[in-house]
C-alpha cells in the first residue's frame, strides 16, 4: 500500500479532530487519520503528543476525563460515531486495549474475559471467542483460574488483548502494548498483533516503540503537539532519516555531541 485508502474503504476515518480538556486546554489541533480495512496502522509520537487523547476521542472515553470534541468527525465503517458512548462504540465493533493493560486484577483470568464479553449475549459466539483467545494465548489457558493480578506483565498484556478480542472487534485499538515489557515479550506481542490482523481485524497501533510498530504497519502517522506531522507507508517511515534519528535512535555518525541538541530542536519541528 502506498497511499492512504480512499475514505469509502477506510474502516476508521478521523477528520480535523479538535479536542479540549476542561473547556480550555486544546490537546488535539485538527487531527486526520485513516485506518484502511484490514490494515495495521501505526501511530507514533512522544509523550504528550496527544496519541491517547486521540484514542479517547475515538472510543468515547473523553467524557470520563472531562474532555470534549469541539471540531471534526470520527467515522467508523461509514457511519459517524462522533461523541457516542463507549458501550455503543464497542457494540459497533471497535475495541480498545488501554495503556497500562488495566486488567481487573482482583478477578480471575476467566472472569476478566467474561467481563470483556459483556456486550454480547450469544453464548455460542462467546464460547467461540473464548476458544479463539485461548488458542492465541496458550499461557492464559494454563492460568485461566488464577487471579489476574498475579500474572506477569506480559501475561497481563495478553489478557488485556484477549479481553478486547472477546468483543469480536473488526477494529482493534492498541495503546502502547509494549510498554514496560521485556524485548522477548515485545516480540511475542508483535507476532500476536500480526496474527490478529491476519484473522481479519484491522489494527490501530499506538506505540513509542517505533521499530516494533513500523516493522508490521502498512501505514504510519507521527504526532507532535496535537498534530499529525508526518505520515507514510510503514517501510518508508522506517527508512526516513528524521524518524530514524528521533524514534529509532540511529544517528548518522555515531553518538552526537551536545552541540547538536540545537539542531535536534530545530529539526524535530517538522510542522513548523
Amino acid at each position, binding site marked *: 500500500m502506498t497511499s492512504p485508502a480512499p475514505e469509502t474503504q477506510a474502516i476508521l476515518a478521523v477528520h480535523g479532530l479538535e479536542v479540549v480538556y476542561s473547556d480550555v486546554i486544546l490537546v488535539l489541533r485538527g487531527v486526520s487519520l485513516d485506518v484502511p480495512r484490514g490494515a495495521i496502522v501505526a501511530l507514533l509520537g512522544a509523550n504528550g503528543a496527544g496519541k491517547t487523547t486521540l484514542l479517547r476521542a475515538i472510543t468515547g472515553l473523553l467524557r470520563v476525563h472531562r474532555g470534549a470534541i469541539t471540531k471534526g468527525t470520527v467515522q467508523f465503517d461509514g457511519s459517524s460515531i462522533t461523541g457516542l458512548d463507549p*458501550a455503543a462504540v464497542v457494540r459497533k465493533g471497535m475495541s480498545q486495549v488501554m495503556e497500562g493493560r*488495566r486488567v481487573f486484577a*482482583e478477578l480471575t483470568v476467566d472472569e476478566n474475559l467474561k*467481563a470483556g464479553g459483556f456486550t454480547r449475549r450469544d453464548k455460542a459466539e462467546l464460547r467461540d471467542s473464548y476458544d479463539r483467545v485461548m488458542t492465541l494465548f496458550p499461557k492464559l489457558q494454563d492460568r485461566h483460574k488464577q487471579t489476574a*493480578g498475579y500474572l506477569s506483565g506480559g501475561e497481563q498484556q495478553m489478557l488485556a488483548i484477549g479481553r478486547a478480542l472477546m468483543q469480536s472487534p473488526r477494529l482493534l485499538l492498541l495503546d502502547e502494548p509494549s510498554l514496560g515489557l521485556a524485548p522477548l515479550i515485545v516480540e511475542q506481542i508483535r507476532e500476536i498483533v500480526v496474527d490478529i490482523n491476519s484473522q481479519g481485524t484491522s489494527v490501530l497501533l499506538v506505540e513509542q516503540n517505533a521499530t516494533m510498530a513500523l516493522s508490521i504497519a502498512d501505514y504510519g502517522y507521527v504526532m507532535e503537539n496535537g498534530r499529525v506531522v508526518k505520515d507514510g507507508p510503514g517501510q518508508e517511515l522506517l527508512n526516513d532519516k528524521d524518524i530514524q534519528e528521533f524514534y529509532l535512535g540511529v544517528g548518522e555518525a555515531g553518538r552526537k555531541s551536545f552541540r547538536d541538541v540545537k539542531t535536534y530542536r530545530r529539526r524535530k519541528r517538522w510542522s513548523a
Partner: protein
Amino acid sequence: MTDFLQLSFAGLALGALYALVALGFVIIYKATGVINFAQGGLVLLGGYLTYNVHHTWGVPFYLSIPVAMILCGMVGAAVERVVLRRMVGQPVFAVIMVTIGLLFVIEQVVTGTWGFNRLNMGDPWGIKKFTVGDVQLSVVNLWTIMLAALVMAGFFLFFRYSRLGVAMRATAFDQEAAIANGISARRVFALSWAIAGAVATLAGVMLASGGSGLSPEIEFVALLAFPAIILGGLDSPAGAVLGGVIIGLTQTLTAGYQPRYADWLGNGFSSVMPYVVMIVILLIRPYGLFGTKEVRRV
C-alpha cells in the same frame, strides 16, 4: 446447656437479621465503592412499604413482600439515578455525607407518611414457637435464618457466575477499564442500588415481624449491623453473613452470661461487646475476615 443453646439460637437469628442489612451495604460498596449510610433508611422504607401493600392494598402477606421488594428496589435505583450519579468522581467524603443526608430524608418521608406509632406488621408468624428438646425456637427466627442463607447463596452465585455480577466486580475494580470494555457503569450502579433496596425490604420485614411491630426505630439496626460489615469485610457477602452471626452471637451470649459472671462490667455491656470483638479482629485482619486483600505483585 439449655441456656446456651437457647441463647445461641437467638444469637443466630439476630445475626441473620444483621446479615440481611449488611448484604445491602455490601452490594453497593462492591459495585460503586460507596459506603451507603442510607441503607438503614431503605430497611425502614422496605418495612413500611410491605405494611402498606399488605394492609392498605389488601395483598396477601407472602405476596406483599416481593411486591414491596420491587417497589423499594425501584426507589433505590431512583435515588442512585437522581442523587448519587451526580456524585460520581467526587470525593468519597462528600458521597458519604450525601448518603447520610438521604437517611434523614427517607426517615422524614416515612414518619410523615405512616406516622410514629408502632404498627402491626400482620405477619402470620407472630410469637409462634415450637420446642425441640428443651429449646424453644420461634418461627420468625427460623424464617430469618433461612432467608439470610438464601440471599447469601444468591449473592454468591450472582457475583461468581452471572454476567452482570462479574461486570459489577469489574466496574468496582476499575471503572474506566470497565467502561472501555463496553460495560455500562450507569446500569451497574442503578442495579446495585435496586438490589440493595430489595434486600433491605426483607430485613425490614423480618425486623418488624414476630410480634416486635413496625416502628421508625428499626432503622437503628443498620448501625448495629455496621460492626458486622466491617468485621466480615466490606466487599464480601459471605463475610457479611459470618460477621452478622458473630456479632449476633456475641451480643446474646454476653447478654445471657455477663450479668452472672462479670457483673462488674455493668448493665447493657452486651451492646458494647460487638465493637470490642470488631476492634480485636480488625487489629489482626485490617481488611476484615473475608475482605479482598489488595492484589499486588511483588
